[in-house]
């Protein structure tokens, strides 16, 4: 029985104790840390007794591993620099193996044997690209006897576009990406996809992760060129299409990108817009509440995603376990005080914009003339009428030729001076308390942050925050990221609670390894690809997931010391992608607007907001479900629409997380509705039939399967072998072959003689059985 030990480990141990010790809500509220002023000189709480956090918690709570900067022994420093100069990753792999091996030795355990090649390529491919390898790739890898065959495979997969698509999916979980606003109306965000594609591009470019951080938090503040002009009003989180109509009276400083890299920096600020947005707030005159909620959510997500700090726990009072005060939540929140959604940021480059303007200028002149004539037309009779019709048609034609530049779902500061941030008593936006300046967590840096505006019209606050987060001085950021990557490759991180490095989170199982990985990650220029390489080349990763004897299982049942690799189920997207991939249905898609797969009416009709849209009663707010033709939607799941109130049912059945808060790690449940989805659901059936056709068309000429012939047994045996090769990338065993042939034959009988294509249908039934095997959904 699988132990669902996905959640916090130490929470379970510490929680009751701490709960008993902890003050009740409200008791500690009077003694918050002042947000600014007197603490300029004080240092971090670990070294400086004047740090206010020491006072606040009576010197307690500081024995927290994650507060200390990553420590690396001298010998390991040498190893780190060796790893730095060795871009193949073998030096890093050696360090990983030495450190995990040391722990195993201490516990009297040994590592498993290296997994066989078929297992390795399948695991590697699923880990790095989220897709199973092709049968040919598996054969080629098994046949490749050169010593660097495996290393080359790692490099090839890291260089494939599918790598970015996989890596982006993992990041989108962390930042709670969705294509809709959420809340009651859950409107579509027509431009959110640009952020998704930006993330894919960033990973495929191996953009240094520190830069990736800065771009998302403050990409707009990196751009020096800007224009000042009346802006198109933000449709509050929506996109340009929804916004064009309304002009805002305010003048905004809008950054103008000069290069595609700069355009990406603007698109990256979509990060600041990903949270839910309650568009009904205005109806209730609750903009203030909404703004408070948006800022709280952005603060909490930023702390979780980059720092693994639970800032949501100190929104209403000082933190219950960690050395964070309520003021710390608001000090962090203050970095975002000036940020506003902006849909008038153009990400088309100057040349393109100019071309568009030129194109439009001519059209507009002609349009103006035609419109004037149209207006001046008198009677509605005879020739006039015909001319009128002609004019209307011409106007329509010209209007359709007008082009729009590409806008981004961006966010910029609304002014150079941010509104004052106050601690909200009990977290309530209607009870403002003491004013705070932007500042990093007091325990590390008690003073206000040093902030320089990089250009007019913006505060520079987010840039200051981003630079601090992305700095090697910060004890959290690099550890948090390497831990996420480790989790990707082992199913669980060195710290099991990837979003909580606090007292109620888990302790690292391999602290020195975590620190070494974090340190060398920074030394290697924050290269995620290089980090992958080191881990994937290690024997620790390459070992088999099988049990070897009862001993390790007894002394370390949860495999914390990594005496074997962990088996993992494909996550929802990878499972759907694998079905499409082996059945040959997967369509390439280069990115762009999300695609809307067909979902049963009963689901769309169960949502009042979607019903409104179906009746055209949603006032053009795009609350609906806009199904694309089925042949277009067989793309990788990352390109499917992520609608907050209606997740794609197949993905939801396989534990798609809720997209309202940062998801640290996917759950894996095993429940009956999943079986129904794979056995009876339309996707399962379609894929099985496509797979059947694919197998039957593979290789040899397609002989009539239903014709009685002495050849049939061996032919059918070949089909079964082909099926296993394509679906599972291995030959069937003799027993499996027999089981498969039996099922095929008996299904054919049951389908009946009168069904003309019974043999094919029965073979498709067999294909469906194979796609339902554990082995298909699990990675060894």
């Amino acid at each position, binding site marked *: *029985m*699988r*132990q*669902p*030990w*996905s*959640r*916090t480990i130490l*929470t*379970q*141990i510490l*929680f009751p104790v701490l709960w*008993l010790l902890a003050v*009740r*809500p*409200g008791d500690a*509220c009077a003694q918050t840390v002042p947000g600014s002023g007197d603490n300029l000189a004080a240092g971090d709480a670990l070294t400086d007794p004047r740090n206010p956090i020491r006072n606040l918690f009576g010197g307690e709570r500081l024995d927290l591993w994650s507060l200390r900067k990553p420590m690396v022994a001298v010998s390991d420093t040498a190893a780190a620099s060796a790893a730095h100069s060795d871009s193949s990753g073998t030096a890093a792999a050696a360090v990983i193996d030495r450190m995990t091996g040391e722990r195993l030795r201490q516990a009297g355990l040994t590592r498993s044997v290296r997994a066989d090649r078929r297992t390795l390529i399948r695991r590697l491919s699923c880990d790095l690209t989220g897709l199973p390898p092709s049968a040919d790739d598996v054969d080629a890898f098994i046949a490749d006897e050169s010593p660097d065959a495996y290393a080359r495979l790692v490099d090839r997969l890291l260089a494939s576009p599918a790598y970015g698509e996989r890596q982006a999916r993992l990041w989108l979980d962390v930042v709670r990406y969705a294509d809709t606003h959420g809340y009651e109306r859950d409107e579509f965000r027509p431009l959110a996809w640009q952020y998704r594609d930006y993330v894919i591009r960033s990973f495929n470019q191996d953009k240094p992760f520190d830069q990736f951080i800065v771009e998302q938090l403050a990409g707009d503040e990196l751009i020096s060129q800007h224009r000042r002009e009346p802006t198109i009003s933000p449709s509050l989180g929506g996109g340009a299409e929804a916004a064009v109509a309304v002009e805002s009276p305010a003048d905004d400083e809008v950054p103008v990108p000069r290069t595609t890299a700069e355009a990406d920096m603007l698109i990256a600020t979509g990060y600041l817009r990903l949270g839910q947005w309650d568009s009904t707030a205005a109806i*209730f005159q609750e903009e203030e*509440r909404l703004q408070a909620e948006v800022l709280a959510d952005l603060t909490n997500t930023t702390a979780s995603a980059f720092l693994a700090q639970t800032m949501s726990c100190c929104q*209403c009072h000082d933190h219950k376990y960690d050395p964070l005060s309520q003021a710390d939540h608001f000090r962090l929140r203050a970095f975002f005080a000036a940020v506003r959604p902006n849909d008038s940021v153009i990400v088309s480059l100057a040349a393109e914009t100019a071309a568009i303007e030129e194109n439009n200028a001519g059209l507009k002149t002609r349009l103006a003339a035609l419109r004037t004539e149209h207006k001046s037309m008198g009677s509605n009779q005879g020739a006039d009428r015909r001319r009128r019709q002609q004019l209307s048609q011409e106007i329509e034609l010209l209007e359709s030729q007008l082009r729009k530049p590409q806008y981004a779902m961006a966010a910029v500061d609304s002014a150079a001076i941010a509104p004052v941030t106050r601690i909200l008593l*009990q*977290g*309530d936006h*209607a*009870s403002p308390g003491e004013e705070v300046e932007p500042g990093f967590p007091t325990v590390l840096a008690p003073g206000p942050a040093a902030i320089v505006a990089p250009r007019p019209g913006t505060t520079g606050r987010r840039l200051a925050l981003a630079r601090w987060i992305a700095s090697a001085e910060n004890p959290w950021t690099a550890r948090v990221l390497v831990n996420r990557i480790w989790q990707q490759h082992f199913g669980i991180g060195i710290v099991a609670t990837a979003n909580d490095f606090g007292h109620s989170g888990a302790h690292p199982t391999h602290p020195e390894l975590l620190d070494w990985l974090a340190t060398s990650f920074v030394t290697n220029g924050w290269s995620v690809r290089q980090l992958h390489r080191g881990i994937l080349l290690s024997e620790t990763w390459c070992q088999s*997931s099988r049990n070897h004897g009862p001993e390790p*299982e007894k002394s370390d*049942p949860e495999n914390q010391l990594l005496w074997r690799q962990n*088996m993992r189920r494909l996550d929802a997207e990878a499972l759907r992608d694998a079905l499409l991939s082996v059945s040959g249905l997967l369509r390439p898609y280069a990115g762009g607007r999300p695609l809307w797969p067909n979902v049963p009416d*009963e689901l769309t009709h*169960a*949502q*009042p907001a979607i019903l409104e849209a179906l009746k055209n009663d949603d006032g053009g707010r795009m609350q609906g479900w806009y199904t694309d033709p089925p042949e277009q939607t067989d793309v990788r799941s990352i390109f499917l629409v992520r609608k907050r109130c209606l997740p794609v*049912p197949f993905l939801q059945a396989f534990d798609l997380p*809720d997209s309202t808060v940062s998801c640290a790690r996917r759950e*894996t449940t*095993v*429940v*009956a*509705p*999943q079986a*129904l*989805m794979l*056995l*009876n659901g339309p996707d399962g059936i379609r894929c099985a039939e496509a797979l059947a056709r694919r197998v039957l068309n593979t290789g040899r000429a397609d002989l009539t399967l239903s014709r009685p012939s002495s050849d049939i047994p061996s032919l059918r045996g070949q089909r079964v072998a082909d099926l296993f090769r394509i679906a599972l990338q291995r030959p069937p065993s003799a027993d499996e072959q027999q*089981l*498969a042939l039996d*099922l095929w034959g008996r*299904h054919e009988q*049951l*389908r009946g003689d009168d069904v003309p294509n019974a043999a094919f249908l029965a073979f498709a*039934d067999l294909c*469906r*059985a194979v796609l*339902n*095997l*554990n*082995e298909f959904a*699990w990675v*060894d």
Partner: protein
Amino acid sequence: MLTAHHFSRRGLLQQSACGLGTMALSQLLVQEGRGGTAAGSRAETGLSQRPPHFAPRARNVIFICMSGGPSQLDLFDPKPQLNRRHGERVPAAFLDSLADPVIRGDARCFGSPRVFRHYGDCGMQFSDRLPHLGGCADDLCMVRSMFTTTSNHDPGQLLLQCGTVLFGHPCMGSWVTWGLGSESQNLPGFVVLLSSSGEGVDAGTSLWSNGFLPSNYRGVTFRSQGDPILHLSSPQGVSPPMQRLRLDAIRSMNQLRYATTGDPETEARIRAYELAFRMQTAAPDLVDFTQESEVTRQLYGLDNETTRPFGSNCLLARRMVERGVRFVQLYHSTWDDHSDLNNHLKKNTDMTDLPAAGLIRDLKQRGLLEQTLVIWGGEFGRTPMHEIRRGTTPGKEGRDHHPFGFTMLLAGGGIKAGHVHGRTDELGYHAVEDRVHVHDLQATILHCLGLDHTQLTFHHHGRDFRLTDVAGTVIDGVLA
């Protein structure tokens, strides 16, 4: 062929190594056919019945989750003093110990415009919004002294269902089905019915999560229209014998694979497929209401558009209990009436009062009420003051979240009928007499099912966990 006990060996070892509680161990032995009970098909469901700690008063639970926090002051708990003080400041004495964010000291008393009536022989009071539930007064136990320790929806709902405000813990339905198993071989032991009002439930799927318990104890959501579960029907051309054959083949191939990999998930996956197959047969019958009489249809309000959605779910709950489903969570949302309380309250009670009362009457007339525990209530109540968060447009006032005193209804197996338990102060501010914390309610629910809440534990990462955390006392006063 590998046997079921072979599959579980690993799980058994794993759990023993962690120091399994005796209760859970005996369950496991029973489950594996080593405790004297035949294994057979039961072991395959993973939800086979297990003995309670002592003689149970109830066998099933229907928890009508009124999420959002229904207003006890406008439904169950009349406060003449509050009405008299309408518009006045709340006396300072009530605010002294108050540290809660959502209740502000400068709020004014907000009397209830509702008219209350005495119902039944017991004379229990209900407001004019709940005439039908009022009609069941002699079968109900009204707990007026509930309190909880958190005042927002997600944590409040989590505390009520999972005993903690943290995500990742098992909910009551999972605990109960884990502790007792399920009588149903063909339906999940723990089912969730979501109201089709379209409003989500704040804490979402965590409310029916298995947490750290095995994943087959997670609540399965059913719908009352169409396929009760998505893709329940076999594809066209696939007969039950064919589906059976295919499942057998999948199972055999999985077992072959297991012999080489030892994948511990194999067993759970096989169970899931077996249950899926049996559900395919059982569930269509479950949701087929055509055999229900006209009288029953009226009882649940199936022929009225307002009551039909909730009524269908109430009827479905009865049919599930009849078929041995152990625990049903039945949601209606939302009662979160920060503004326009009067209108919203009418809307919610119009939708739910008749069907909820119909369910109780129906269970009673079928002799099911004595073995079924029915609970009606939300994560907290609402403030005696009007809400000032959204302004105070006359006639559009609302009430804010209120954790210090609210009301829940209990009925059925083991519960004292026609009884009012506990009391709030004269403004309805604090529960002051026979106070019942959410953990006490949980302890009592388990008690009715024959489970000792301190003994129903699961060892997880070095500690024995239980539904009631480190608290909870069985409320003798509500027991029959």
